[in-house]
C-alpha cells in the first residue's frame, strides 16, 4: 500500500509537533536568527521602502520574463558561455549527464543549490557512476546522513553539535568532539581534496543578470568560489525566475537577500560569473554552461493571481517566522521548498491535487507576508490554494457535508443554541472527547463551564 503525500504529512507533522527536543533546537536557532535580522534591518534607511523597491524590480522582470530571458541568453553566448533550455527536471538531468560524459567527468563538486535538489541531480549522477560531492558544510552533513535539507538556507538547522559529531564519527570515523570549529575543519580538509580532483563544478544561481549575462552566487564559505574556479567545466542550473534586469540591481538585492537570509549586511562572498576562462586570464573553467530550468515555473507564471510567488529570492525568512514550520519542522513538508513559500508553489510545480493539503499547513497569521523581502502575498496565496482545491473538488465528501452542516447551524440562532447545548453536554459528560482524539492525544482539553455565555448574558447582561 502506498502512502499518500497527505497521509505522510499528517504522520510526520504529528510526530514532530510532540518532539520537544526538536522544538528546543529550532527555537534556539531561530532566536539567534531573529536577533541578527533585527540588527541587519537597522542598516537600511527604510526597510519597508527597500522591500517595495525589490518588489517593483522583480515585478518588472517576471512580467516581461521573455524579454529578459532572451537578453540574458544573448549576453551569456556573447561572453563565450553556453545556454541550455530545460523544460523538465528530466531534461536538465539528461543534459548534465551528457556534458559529464562528453568531458569524461568522474567527480563533481557541488555548491549549495536548491534547484539541483528540486531536480534530484545527485541521484542521477550517482546512478551514472559519477561521484557528486556536496561542498557546503550543511549540505555535506545532509549528504553523509542521507537526508534532504531541513531548510532552504540552513540545511541542518535541526541538528545539534553533538548530532553532527556523532554523524562524523559513524560515517567518517573521526574522533568525538564537541567543537563546531573542529567539525568544520574536518569537513574543510576532506572537501579540499575533493576540490583538487574534481572535473566539473555544479552550482545554482541566486540571480541571473540580464544586461551582462552573468550569474550571481551568494555564499559564506568559499565553496562556491572553489567550485567555479578549480574544475575544468562549470555548470550552473538556474530557474527561469532568477532573472534581474541590471547589474546595478545587485546593490539592493545582495544586502536584501543576506539580511533576510542570515541578518548579515552582505555575505562573505557574493560572486558573479560571466563565462569561461578568457584568453588573457590565468585560470578558470574551459567551459561555462547555464541550464535555464522551467519545470513547472511557467504554470505558476500563468496564474496571474499568484505570479508574484516567482519573485521569491529563497531567503528562508518565511520559514523562520512561520509558527507551523517551527512546530512541524522542515522535513514534514516532504517538498524541496519548505514553509509558506513551499506550500504556495509546490502544488504548481508538482501535482496540484496531491499537494493541496499544504495550503492548510498555515494559521493564516500573515507573518510570512510581513517578513517577505520582495512582498509576496504569501498567506493570501495559501488561501487561494485552498479555494482552488475546493473548486477542483480536491476536498472529500465528509468535509463538504460537515461544512454544509456547520453553515446550516450557524444560520439560525435557534439551531446554534441547540447545537451549543448539545456540545456542552457531550463535552462535560466526556462523550465528545473521543472525536477530539487527534487533538487531545498530546494536549490537555479544558472542561467547558456549566453555563454558556448566552445564558450568562441573558441573566447578567446590560438589561437596557
Amino acid at each position: 500500500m502506498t502512502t499518500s503525500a497527505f497521509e505522510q504529512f499528517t504522520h510526520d507533522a504529528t510526530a514532530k509537533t510532540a518532539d520537544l527536543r526538536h522544538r528546543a533546537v529550532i527555537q534556539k536557532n531561530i532566536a539567534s536568527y531573529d536577533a541578527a535580522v533585527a540588527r541587519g534591518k537597522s542598516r537600511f534607511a527604510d526597510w519597508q521602502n527597500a522591500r517595495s523597491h525589490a518588489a517593483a524590480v522583480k515585478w518588472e522582470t517576471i512580467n516581461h520574463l521573455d524579454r529578459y530571458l532572451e537578453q540574458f541568453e544573448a549576453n551569456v553566448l556573447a561572453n563565450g558561455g553556453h545556454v541550455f533550455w530545460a523544460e523538465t527536471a528530466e531534461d536538465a538531468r539528461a543534459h548534465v549527464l551528457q556534458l559529464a560524459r562528453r568531458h569524461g567527468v568522474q567527480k563533481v563538486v557541488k555548491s549549495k543549490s536548491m534547484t539541483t535538489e528540486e531536480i534530484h541531480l545527485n541521484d542521477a549522477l550517482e546512478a551514472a557512476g559519477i561521484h557528486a560531492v556536496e561542498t557546503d558544510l550543511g549540505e555535506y552533513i545532509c549528504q553523509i546522513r542521507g537526508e534532504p535539507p531541513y531548510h532552504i538556507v540552513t540545511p541542518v538547522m535541526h541538528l545539534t553539535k553533538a548530532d553532527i559529531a556523532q554523524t562524523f564519527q559513524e560515517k567518517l570515523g573521526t574522533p568525538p568532539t564537541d567543537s563546531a570549529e573542529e567539525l568544520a575543519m574536518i569537513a574543510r580538509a576532506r572537501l579540499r581534496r575533493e576540490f583538487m580532483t574534481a572535473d566539473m563544478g555544479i552550482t545554482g544561481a541566486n540571480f541571473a543578470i540580464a544586461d551582462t549575462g552573468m550569474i550571481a552566487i551568494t555564499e559564506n564559505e568559499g565553496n562556491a568560489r572553489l567550485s567555479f574556479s578549480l574544475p575544468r567545466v562549470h555548470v550552473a542550473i538556474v530557474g527561469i525566475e532568477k532573472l534581474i534586469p541590471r547589474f546595478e540591481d545587485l546593490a539592493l538585492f545582495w544586502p536584501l537577500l543576506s539580511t533576510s537570509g542570515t541578518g548579515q549586511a552582505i555575505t562573505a562572498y557574493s560572486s558573479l560569473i560571466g563565462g569561461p576562462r578568457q584568453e588573457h586570464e590565468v585560470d578558470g573553467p574551459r567551459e561555462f554552461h547555464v541550464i535555464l530550468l522551467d519545470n513547472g515555473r511557467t504554470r505558476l507564471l500563468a496564474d496571474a493571481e499568484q505570479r508574484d510567488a516567482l519573485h521569491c529570492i529563497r531567503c528562508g525568512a518565511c520559514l523562520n517566522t512561520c509558527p507551523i514550520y517551527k512546530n512541524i519542522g522542515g522535513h514534514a513538508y516532504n517538498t524541496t521548498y519548505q514553509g509558506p513559500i513551499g506550500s504556495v508553489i509546490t502544488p504548481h510545480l508538482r501535482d496540484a491535487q496531491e499537494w493541496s493539503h499544504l495550503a492548510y499547513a498555515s494559521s493564516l497569521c500573515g507573518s510570512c507576508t510581513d517578513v517577505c523581502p520582495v512582498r509576496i502575498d504569501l498567506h493570501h496565496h495559501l488561501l487561494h490554494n485552498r479555494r482552488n482545491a475546493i473548486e477542483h473538488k480536491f476536498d472529500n465528501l465528509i468535509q463538504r457535508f460537515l461544512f454544509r452542516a456547520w453553515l446550516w447551524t450557524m444560520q439560525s440562532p435557534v439551531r446554534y443554541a441547540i447545537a451549543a447545548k448539545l456540545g456542552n453536554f457531550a463535552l462535560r459528560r466526556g462523550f465528545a472527547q473521543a472525536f477530539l482524539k487527534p487533538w487531545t492525544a498530546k494536549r490537555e482539553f479544558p472542561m467547558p463551564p456549566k453555563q454558556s455565555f448566552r445564558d450568562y448574558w441573558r441573566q447578567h447582561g446590560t438589561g437596557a
Partner: protein
Amino acid sequence: MEPARDNILDRVRAALRVEAHRPLAPTSAPIFPAVSDPEARFREEFVALKGQIIENAEALRMFLKGFTKITTDGSELVGKAVGEANASVHECDLGVTGCDCLVAQTGSIIVSTLSAGGRALSVLPPTHLVIARRQQIVPDLANAMALLRKRYNKRWPSALSVITGPSRTADIEKILVMGAHGPKQLAVYFAE
C-alpha cells in the same frame, strides 16, 4: 535551435497575456543611509568582520615574516609591497592580490580575475592579503557597481567577487567558525 527554448518562451508569452496586479510603487527616498566618512566606515566594518588592517610598512614587514610560501598576482602595486612570488597558488600559505575597489558601507573588497590574478588566488590560499590604495575606497555598493560598470562595460572579466571578511560558516548551531573553505585570514594594506 532546440524546440525547448521556443516551447518555454511560448509558454512565458502566453502566461503573460493576463496582467498581474502591480505592487505599490516605492518612494524615491534613499535605500541606505549615506556614508559620511568612507575610510572610517570601511575600517569599522572590516575590523568588525574580523578583517585585519596592516597600518604601516613596518607592520607589513612583521606580517610577512609569518609566511614562507607566497604567491602574488604579479601586478606592480603588489610587487612593490611584497616582492616576487616564490610558490604556486596550490602550495602557497599567502596569496597577495590587488582589487578593483573597497566598499565602506559593508567593509567589502571587490576582486576580479583582472584585478586579483585570476579566480583561485583570492580564495584558495589560507591567508589573503590585499594591497590597495586609499583612493580605491568607495562609499557604498551602488558606487562600486557604477565604478565596475564604467571600467568593464566593453569587456567584463569572467568572474568577480565581493569579499566581505574571511571565509565563515554558521551551519552548525549558528556558531560562527572562520575559514570554512576559503581564507581563514584576510588582511588589507594601504600602499602609499
